[in-house]
């Protein structure tokens, strides 16, 4: 695997309140990947991303971006990074072009980039309209345009689809994939929606209560998923069945069904045989393909 674009080691962070916001976060974002940074609200996603951009003072651990220590190479690194953190940051009294012009000057890009990024995000014809008259979706798109202006090698996007309509969400997702494919841009994108990450990411990191619970490729996540597959059973006498099954498996009862961890086809047959021997009719017996959503709940509720 190619060397990571972002690598954090033992990253901890405390806010004044005392509780740990981040606890030993070791983020590894491989070059050329789309890294989906997943976690419920308040898990520490934004804190991590803000630390990566130097918006929060690092307290413990190390941050390397492009193989260089962040603190000693802040400006050099930031020149190659585009970012969008939380809600759009735009000068509302200025037009789309004026907003872009400010950052064009700072990044020293060509004037033609302004029209290029405007057409990438589909905001070519806003003319003299000021940013404050934009819809939330348009503001978000303009913020993405700013992040893309200097053709960064690394894009850090914090919940970029927040507040977008379904069409906007699809477009943003397509855009991220396209940038990754055509320009080999590494993208670190945070989200609290599993489905979304699943649809674009090549790498996934799951954070919960400041701790990384999972990190790996989407494939590895799928593998974990099979491990977590459950066998769903519905019978004429669920109470009796549950008692029987309890002796051998850890069971769960849900909506009139019994769920036990799926191990093999043979296990299904054995369960069936056992229930029949006790004169219980089996209505349903099938491995339940627990989707990522279920896994997400499983993973994030593990440390209770």
């Amino acid at each position, binding site marked *: 695997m190619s060397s990571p674009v972002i690598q954090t080691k033992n990253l901890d962070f405390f806010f004044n309140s005392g509780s740990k916001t981040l606890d030993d976060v070791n983020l590894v974002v491989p070059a050329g990947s789309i890294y989906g940074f997943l976690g419920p609200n308040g898990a520490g996603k934004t804190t991590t991303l803000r630390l990566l951009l130097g918006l929060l003072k690092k307290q413990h651990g190390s941050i390397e971006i492009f193989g260089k220590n962040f603190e000693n190479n802040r400006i050099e690194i*930031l020149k190659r990074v585009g970012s969008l953190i939380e809600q759009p940051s735009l000068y509302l*009294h200025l037009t789309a072009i004026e907003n872009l012009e400010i950052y064009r000057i700072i990044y020293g890009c060509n004037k033609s980039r302004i029209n290029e990024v405007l057409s990438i995000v589909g905001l070519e014809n806003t003319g003299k309209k000021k940013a404050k008259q934009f819809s939330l979706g348009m503001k978000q798109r303009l913020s993405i345009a700013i992040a893309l202006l200097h053709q960064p090698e690394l894009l850090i996007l914090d919940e970029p689809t927040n507040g977008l309509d379904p069409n906007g969400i699809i477009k943003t997702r397509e855009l991220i994939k396209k940038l990754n494919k055509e320009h080999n841009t590494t993208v670190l994108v945070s989200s609290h929606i599993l489905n979304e990450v699943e649809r674009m990411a090549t790498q996934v990191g799951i954070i919960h209560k400041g701790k990384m619970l999972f990190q790996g490729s989407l494939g590895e996540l799928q593998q974990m998923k099979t491990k977590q597959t459950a066998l769903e059973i519905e019978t004429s006498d669920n109470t009796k069945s549950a008692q029987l099954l309890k002796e051998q498996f850890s069971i769960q009862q849900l909506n009139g069904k019994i769920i036990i961890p799926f191990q093999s086809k043979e296990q299904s047959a054995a369960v069936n045989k056992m229930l029949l021997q006790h004169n219980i009719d089996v209505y349903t017996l099938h491995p339940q393909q627990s989707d990522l959503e279920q896994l997400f709940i499983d993973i994030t509720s593990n440390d209770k």
Partner: protein
Amino acid sequence: MSFAISLRAEILKTKRSAAFWLSVLGALFIPVIFFLMYFFKPEEFSAQLKSKPWEGHFEHGWQALSLFLLPMFVILTCSLIPQIEFKNNTWKQVFASPQSLGNIFFSKFLAIHLMILFCFILFNIFMLLSAVSVNFLNSKYSFLSTPVDWLALLRLSFKTYVSILGISAIQYWISLRFKNFIAPIGIGLALLITSLIIMQWEHISKVPYAHPALTFFDIRKKSSHLLTNHEWNSIGYFIFFTIVAFFDMKYRKERG
């Protein structure tokens, strides 16, 4: 070089901003009042301005400005320009862009000072225009037939500018600290009014918020030195608080 880039970006941000309009309207206010006074009471004012019309006109104008309106304008401008970032949630984008902290801090401070100087220049132009236009309407005045003493005007503007330096640094620091713009304006206004109340105090020359008012009294005395005591103090406060504000920003845990 990179500082010039940051400064250009800062100036662009003030386009059509509240700070910009405040400068224009602030510069226009007193010249308009003078125009109306001259226009409606020509007998009185033409007699008053008989001997040195331009000198009298500009001195009265600057005096009317520097006692209260100018420090108030400085307080407002120092908070309105950082407010552009607070209000729009753009500090994070600024700090995540490849600019050194020094460039971010000083380019914004310089943009504030350019805005103040812009207001000074506009004020002088509007004062000039108000006198000239009133003279066109009423020939009793002698503005058109007397040359303007440009050097005296420059001296006046320069002294007044120096007198607000201390306030500008203190207000910039407070404005960077508080997200809510009421805080810097409230603190500034309270300090300004306090210093006007204690004007008789023997150490008043050490109170930065009284410096514009002291320059206002000084203009009449016509001392031979370009800068007087309190104006040097103003420069001292300016340097001290600029350094304090910069290090305060540099060592803050959370940015943007």
